[in-house]
């Protein structure tokens, strides 16, 4: 039920470590992309370039925080905070390990879906408030893309809900004791993975900010820490999606020998690296290809998976 798991220590610890991980991902991504592209990447600031993040932060804080005179000011300021807050709040239901977490909510899975669907406002409002045609195009794309892929994301995880019989993330992890859901729900996993990439608006689905055609899409007009919020918000999104993939399909904290928390972090880290590898290896599709792929490939696969899972669940019951 909704009993608080941990006290203030849990909340502060999880909050700080999640923000720290997301900030460090800026460095991790740049170094890893460099490795895969046969470059060096940022290696000047501190050992292995580890303090690059601090240097970036200092630079961002000291930049002029400029609001264009033609912008819708209150909405312009509000937009970057939305993605940051919704993504951070999403971590409240993540089951890190038995006894580690913030709340044990019966509808944890739906709560995650609710927050990811709210995070799209950030991009949409940023594009609207900037009052710039490239921003507007970027946020129109973002809205259409997110609303479409949200549908497949929701349908793809219903198979997991059917197998485990609950929306509670901790019970879903416990239900995977006899076998991770990646095997019976492989199609669901693929759809969820694609939808998660599309929801976080990362390459190859970064059409809303496609540099070559839209300059930077919805965040053209943003500078300083407001841009930083979008940036860290994106990494928070990746971390949250990876944690959800691990929870739903890869047995969460379950695993031999090592302590549960270590297993959870290792699996999540593997998926974060996978997200970065995707960006380094796949080209960006055209916008209509993205939408066609969603509605003509993802939706039927997700529905068929749901149908098959339902049939199996009924016949074995």
């Amino acid at each position, binding site marked *: 039920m909704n009993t608080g798991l941990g006290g203030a220590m849990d909340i502060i610890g999880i909050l700080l470590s999640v923000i720290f991980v997301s900030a460090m991902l800026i460095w991790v991504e740049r170094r890893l992309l460099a490795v895969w592209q046969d470059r060096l990447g940022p290696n000047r600031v501190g050992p292995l370039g580890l303090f690059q993040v601090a240097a970036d932060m200092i630079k961002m804080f000291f930049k002029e925080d400029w609001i264009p005179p033609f912008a819708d000011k209150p909405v312009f300021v509000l937009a970057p905070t939305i993605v940051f807050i919704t993504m951070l709040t999403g971590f409240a239901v993540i089951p890190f390990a038995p006894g580690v977490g913030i709340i044990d*909510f019966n509808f944890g899975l739906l*709560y995650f879906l609710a927050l990811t*669907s709210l995070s799209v*406002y950030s991009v*949409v409002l940023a594009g609207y408030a900037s009052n710039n045609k490239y921003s507007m195009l970027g*946020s*129109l794309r973002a*809205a259409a893309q997110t*609303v479409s892929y949200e549908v497949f994301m929701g349908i793809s995880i219903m198979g997991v809900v059917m197998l485990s019989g609950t929306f509670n993330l901790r019970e879903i992890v416990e239900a995977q004791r006899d076998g991770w859901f990646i095997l019976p729900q492989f199609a669901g996993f693929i759809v969820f993975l694609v939808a998660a990439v599309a929801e976080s608006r990362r390459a190859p689905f970064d059409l809303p900010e496609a540099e070559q055609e839209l300059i930077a899409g919805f965040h053209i007009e943003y500078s300083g820490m407001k841009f930083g919020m979008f940036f860290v918000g994106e990494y928070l999104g990746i971390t949250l999606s990876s944690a959800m993939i691990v929870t739903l399909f890869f047995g969460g904290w379950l695993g031999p020998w090592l302590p549960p928390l270590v297993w959870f972090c290792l699996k999540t880290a593997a998926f974060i690296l996978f997200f970065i590898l995707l960006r380094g290896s796949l080209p960006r599709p055209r916008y209509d290809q993205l939408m066609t792929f969603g509605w003509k490939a993802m939706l039927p696969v997700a529905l068929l998976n749901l149908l098959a899972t339902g049939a199996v669940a009924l016949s074995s019951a």
Partner: protein
Amino acid sequence: MELVLFSISSAVAVFATVMMITRVNAVHGLLYLILSLLAVGVLFFLLGAHFAAVLEVIIYAGAIMVMFVFVIMMLNQGEKTTDQERAWLTPGIWIGPSVLALILFAEVLVVIAGGGSAETGQLVDSKQVGIALYGPYLLAVELASMLLLAGLVGAYHLGKPMMAKRREA
């Protein structure tokens, strides 16, 4: 504790709704409407209807309102609509809605004075909702699905000539 949370979120809901109606900028109005829906979600949660609370956020705040914002953005008319809206919001138009709202308010007062039997505070889980939907309310579910199907076919029909034109071009 529950009562304090309830009062705060209902105050937020009422305030946000009033602000939503009085804004002249359409997007600002929509933002207040989203806030009002989120506040109603909190109210559902406090009443024990967790499932309804989460669905309120996913469907209303997360999907329908995104579409509203999307359309308003596509039609982005700028300053012109703000002036138009300002001209429409004359003092006279408040009378009708205010009288109707007053009637509702009087009804609420009567219900509260009569002991407030509406509040149960009972936890509703997803299984109960599912059983209710596919048991006593099956007909309503089927009717809703037929309505949605009609909407889908209609949207396809309206969109088809446009797609054909694009293919020729």
